């Protein structure tokens, strides 16, 4: 038994089902600065990931006279106070810097989203407890806490990434909690409960995807923050002695800044460009994922 009006009912033309991801890409690709950021980011990634295969100079070994300025030898960007090649340092350090940034950001997101989601969804005493913990981490001085963690457990790449992750998840947790608070009272969440969905499904498969847009933006931006944080730690001397990173290059060359401007400037530019690229991509994502700006 079908409505007699059925034939007339569906007068709307059938649209091809466009997935939200497709629409997001459409919005993103129409944003010039976001695309510029994405291209810049791609260049940085190719530079640091493919670079070591093409340019095979060891970044940690003395290869030429110390403090050679750029363009005065076969090592184009010059050498540092130990005669190490700056370009090799940039290429190899990029990989490490990005790896630390990405894994610290991943940790930030995992901790932040978990705590924020549980607090926002369950509310009550769970929320109270988790938010007090969050506030505790928020009031601790980030840099000091990270330094303590790194000094206690030795400066390996993993420990540095963990230290950064541990001190920077609080804002993600707050953001996630706010989104969950907003979304948990939506009727479609209620509908899920009425059809027998368990809390686990509602949190991770229903609310989280709907809360994702701001979290994706925040994740992207936190990679940039983590890279800056790593640089900060390295500047203070807390870096993995076995691996070159941009931050470590700046830290190592800091005492010789007056004799060799190139030792700190090139890694500085590399960090600046990478963080800029990530910010542009993050902003682009923010616009593309914001449903209010999307054409209906």
């Amino acid at each position, binding site marked *: 038994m079908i*409505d007699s*009006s059925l034939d007339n009912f*569906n007068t709307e033309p*059938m649209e091809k*089902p466009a997935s939200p991801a497709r629409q997001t890409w459409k919005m993103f690709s129409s944003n010039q600065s976001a695309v510029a950021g994405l291209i810049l980011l791609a260049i940085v990634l190719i530079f640091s990931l493919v670079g070591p295969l093409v340019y095979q100079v060891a970044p940690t070994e003395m290869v030429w006279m110390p403090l050679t300025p750029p363009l005065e030898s076969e090592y184009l960007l010059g050498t540092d106070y130990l005669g190490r090649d700056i370009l090799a340092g940039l290429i190899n350090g990029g990989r490490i810097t990005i790896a630390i940034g990405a894994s610290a950001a991943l940790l930030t997101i995992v901790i932040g989203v978990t705590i924020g989601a549980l607090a926002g969804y369950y509310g009550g005493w769970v929320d109270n407890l988790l938010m007090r913990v969050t506030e505790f981490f928020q009031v601790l001085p980030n840099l000091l806490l990270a330094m303590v963690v790194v000094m206690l457990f030795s400066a390996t790449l993993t420990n540095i990434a963990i230290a950064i992750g541990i001190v920077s998840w609080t804002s993600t947790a707050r953001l996630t909690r706010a989104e969950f608070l907003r979304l948990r009272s939506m009727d*479609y969440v209620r509908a*899920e409960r009425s*059809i*027998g969905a368990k809390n686990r499904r509602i949190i991770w498969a229903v609310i989280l995807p709907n809360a994702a847009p701001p979290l994706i933006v925040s994740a992207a931006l936190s990679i940039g923050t983590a890279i800056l944080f790593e640089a900060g730690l390295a500047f203070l001397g807390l870096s993995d002695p076995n691996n070159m990173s941009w931050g470590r290059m700046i830290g190592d060359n800091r005492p010789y800044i007056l004799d060799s401007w190139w030792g700190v400037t090139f890694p500085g530019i590399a960090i600046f460009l990478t963080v800029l690229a990530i910010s542009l991509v993050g902003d682009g994502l923010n616009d593309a994922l914001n449903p209010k700006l999307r054409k209906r």
Partner: protein
Amino acid sequence: MSSKDALLEVSDLKVHFPTRDGAIVHAVDGVTFSIKRGVAFGLVGESGSGKTTTALACVRLVDPTAGQITLGGDDITNIQGTSLRDARKKMQIVFQDPYASLNPRERVGSIVKRPLKLMNIGTATERDARVKELFEIVGLRPEQSELFPHQFSGGQRQRVGIARALATQPDLIVCDEPVSALDVAIQAQILNLLAKLKKEFELTYLFISHDLAVVQHICDEIAVMYLGQIVEQGSKKDIFRNPRHPYTKALISAVPSTDSIGKPREDRIMLDGDPPSPISLPTGCRFASRCPFAVESCEDTPPMLREISAEHSVACHRVDAAGNFT
């Protein structure tokens, strides 16, 4: 009150919420009714009357503070976990706002199939066939199952919501203002669909609405709520032909009608002000402060809901046991 053919029985239901500053909101405060199988039971009232909270408590989407709810003879007031999930197969809900009740990131076919999956009903092929059938039942084309909610109009979304509610072949469907967010022309389509489904699948409705004309059209029995309590309850005929409670009368007479052009109805009972806050409730009749017929005793003691004829009950001091207004 208890009868064999009652599907849903609610007795002395209370739902209280604490506010931030420690006060208690008495959203639902002692509500008793029962719905027979195959009957559309309407709960009407204005905002703050507790009708939606009552409905949500009946399908256990809000936790009852006190009282008892039985569905098909089983007490579902406090069940949890698996037994609650099992009970949910038999009771479903259609929400007010079709824009908020569908997950924007899920294709509508998947939305309709979800209850079958979550409750382990049928094989994958059977579920697909069922979804196709449901789409046809509610007047959608099965090809549309690949679309996302935002690609539908409000009326079509509401059809998706109804299909989801029908998926597990429930006995009871709670309709929470199912047409009030829709355009008038679309309301008729959805109301006709709901009426048709009720007949075809012998459904039982708990129908929540503030719109008396809609309730009159769909429902067989009606309870009028005011500030967390039922003030009058009876068959459709009792309520509209012979309303006894002053609030029911005021409510009916306040509806603008096409019969009185250019002026309000002559029998309109105008109410002053707004309902009292459900946090600090009056000791006597909750309607007394706005009631044009209130006497002293109304302010002191709350009236009990009592039968004035078979299945017609009123809670008013001014209405005697025979149903006469004194």
